[in-house]
């Protein structure tokens, strides 16, 4: 164990010297040296609580919120904020923070896991203390196959878990509720009914049939996409009983109410933190840049909302309407972290933008596909091949004291963040 940690740390040091940003490289090398490194570290640190955070949308925000709650209760947290969420990422994180004897001074380890690698991670760490299941939407079908395939894999991974692993599941997502039901130890969360409407399902909906018997699900109320109070028209399957909290945060959007609720429930069940204490500390929570943080430049506000799938972008459009955006910048890339397939933009309800007075700007590797999409919806916009030109035009045309809302895919978010924070716009 000593050797693999030392090697990993050496690589880490080397990658810093070489200024390589590849945050999974040290872990990759350390795992090559000792395949059971991760398991050994957990054995060496029995007091360390591990919480996995899984779901299509909201993993980073949930991790941030839970970190805030735990740190406010003096629980030291280690989290994979870099978005490097495969086994190598976990190994890298551990290698960086453990000493050569393999001990770690943190009490909680929060780990975002992407859809496909959850079963792999569970093979390596058979008993995490908890898994938070947020939601399952259509995202990166090109990489992960299909939503049903993903939920099948999750289901068989959950069936193997012992009662030591607590499942914190979203009661309003039929797929999540279903797979969670196979756990021996589970708790559910929901949100207040006042945030749910009796409206029709949005177009991008993935899960309208019963995961148990395949018949149509009916919804009494819907919060967004396929999340709501559901019941099967044929079998007894319906939204399970769930915890519900009332709180206030700076996070906008219905989807964040679920993220926050999952964090409050996890803090309660895993660390015994009273929900009222959590709710109190949430008042001081400041969102991360690119995850709803608002920055101010020349008396203009900029908000970045990562929008990488139909449901995410539909919700972001709602936020643009709520915050009365003066300008909107849509950035569409199709690099590997974004998903190579951009067909999902046709599942987004762009016609809602007709209710907005915002000027719309478009850029990214697939800017013209996005522009073509808006053209067919009859929505006026301007296209720029370079992010920089699009951003300049957008910020210039943002009215004083008003908001520019940027809706990027993942790699575009990194680019635009660099653009805004790197340049002398202070």
């Amino acid at each position, binding site marked *: 164990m000593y050797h693999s940690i030392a090697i990993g740390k050496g690589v880490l040091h080397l990658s810093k010297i070489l200024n390589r940003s590849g945050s999974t490289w040290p872990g990759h090398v350390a795992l090559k040296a000792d395949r059971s490194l991760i398991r050994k570290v957990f054995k060496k640190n029995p007091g360390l609580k591990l919480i996995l955070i899984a779901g299509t949308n909201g993993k980073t925000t949930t991790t941030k919120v839970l970190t805030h709650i735990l740190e406010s209760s003096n629980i030291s947290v280690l989290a994979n904020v870099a978005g490097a969420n495969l086994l190598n990422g976990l190994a890298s994180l551990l290698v960086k923070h453990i000493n050569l004897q393999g001990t770690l001074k943190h009490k909680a380890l929060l780990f975002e896991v992407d859809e496909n690698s959850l079963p792999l991670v569970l093979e390596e760490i058979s008993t995490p203390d908890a898994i938070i299941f947020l939601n399952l939407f259509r995202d990166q079908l090109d990489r992960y196959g*299909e939503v*049903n395939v993903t939920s099948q894999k999750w289901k068989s991974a959950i069936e193997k878990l012992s009662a030591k692993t607590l499942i914190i599941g979203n009661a309003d997502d039929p797929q999540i509720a279903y797979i969670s039901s196979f756990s021996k130890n589970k708790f559910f969360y929901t949100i207040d009914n006042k945030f749910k409407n009796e409206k029709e399902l949005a177009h991008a909906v993935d899960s309208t049939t019963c995961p148990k018997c395949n018949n149509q699900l009916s919804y009494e109320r819907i919060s967004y996409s396929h999340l709501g109070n559901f019941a099967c028209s044929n079998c007894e399957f319906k939204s399970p009983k769930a915890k519900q909290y009332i709180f206030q945060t700076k996070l906008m959007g219905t989807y964040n109410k679920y993220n926050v609720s999952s964090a409050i429930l996890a803090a309660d069940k895993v660390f015994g933190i009273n929900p009222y204490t959590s709710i109190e500390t949430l008042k001081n929570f400041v969102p991360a840049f690119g995850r709803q943080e608002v920055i101010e430049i020349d008396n203009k506000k900029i908000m970045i909302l990562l929008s990488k799938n139909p449901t995410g972008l539909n919700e972001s459009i709602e936020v643009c309407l709520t915050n009365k955006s003066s300008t909107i910048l849509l950035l569409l890339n199709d690099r590997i972290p974004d998903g190579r397939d951009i067909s999902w*933009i*046709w599942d987004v309800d762009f016609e809602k933008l007709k209710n907005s007075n915002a000027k719309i700007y478009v850029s990214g590797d697939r800017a013209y*596909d996005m522009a*073509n999409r808006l053209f*067919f919806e009859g929505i006026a916009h301007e296209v720029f091949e370079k992010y920089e030109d699009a951003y300049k035009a957008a910020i210039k045309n943002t009215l004083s004291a008003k908001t520019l809302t940027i809706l990027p895919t993942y790699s575009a978010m990194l680019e635009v963040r660099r653009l805004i924070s790197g340049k002398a716009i202070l």
Partner: protein
Amino acid sequence: MNHQSSTINHNSLTLGWLYPELMSTYGDRGNITVLKKIAEDNGIKFDVLRINQTSNSSLLSTCDILFMGGAQDLQQEIVNRDLIENKGEILREKIEQDTPGLYICGAYQFLGNYYKDAYGTTIPGLGIFEMHTESYKTKPRLIGNIVVKPSNSLIMNHKSLIDSFFFVGFENHGGRTYLADKNQAFAKVIQGYGNNGKDKTEGIHYKNSIGTYLHGPILPSNPELAVYLLKTAYLKKYGKESKITFDNELAKKAKQQMLRKLKTDY
């Protein structure tokens, strides 16, 4: 908006969208949006009939164009049952009677003779297209950007497609499709996999129907193909050529942007 409806005498076309809820995985409704806009911009009233498993099969016979998209396996089972038990025969008649149609991915596969899944089970198809599809446990899904060249038979049918050097799209399928007659291919693969990743054929062009693995979706990325479907439908319904045209710089630029990107990527 139908600004030009007075210039052409109230012509109309009806599209039958088969299983819009169940067979709609990869932005499929984009194809409908594009057909509707092009028709309306050319002064043709365009109605969309949503046909699902509870709809009466006779609805199909009133349609001038048909469209069916792809789906996840689970949804596909429900659709297969309805096609075999209820709507399959009318759909066959429509296709054999030259009704133009676009069938993507799962829909395309199901119109063939059979589908052999990864466990070796053979699921019979409607047998309208002379082809079959096989899925293998050991072989990966065929996923990625795809560039194809329209086949000669397609160009013969619709001369203006000569200008269309390429169709672009995205494919994502586990099944490998084999045509009984490779001359029936919809297109030739330039980059990507197409029907099976081996014989360079992509899709099928049978009578006025097109079966294909291209989504993206296909019509917004290649509006000239939407024009082809509309013109064919118009000719069949009214017995005379229409002057349907469509010129959109954005779609062309999107295509160029993708082709440029592919050259650097591959």
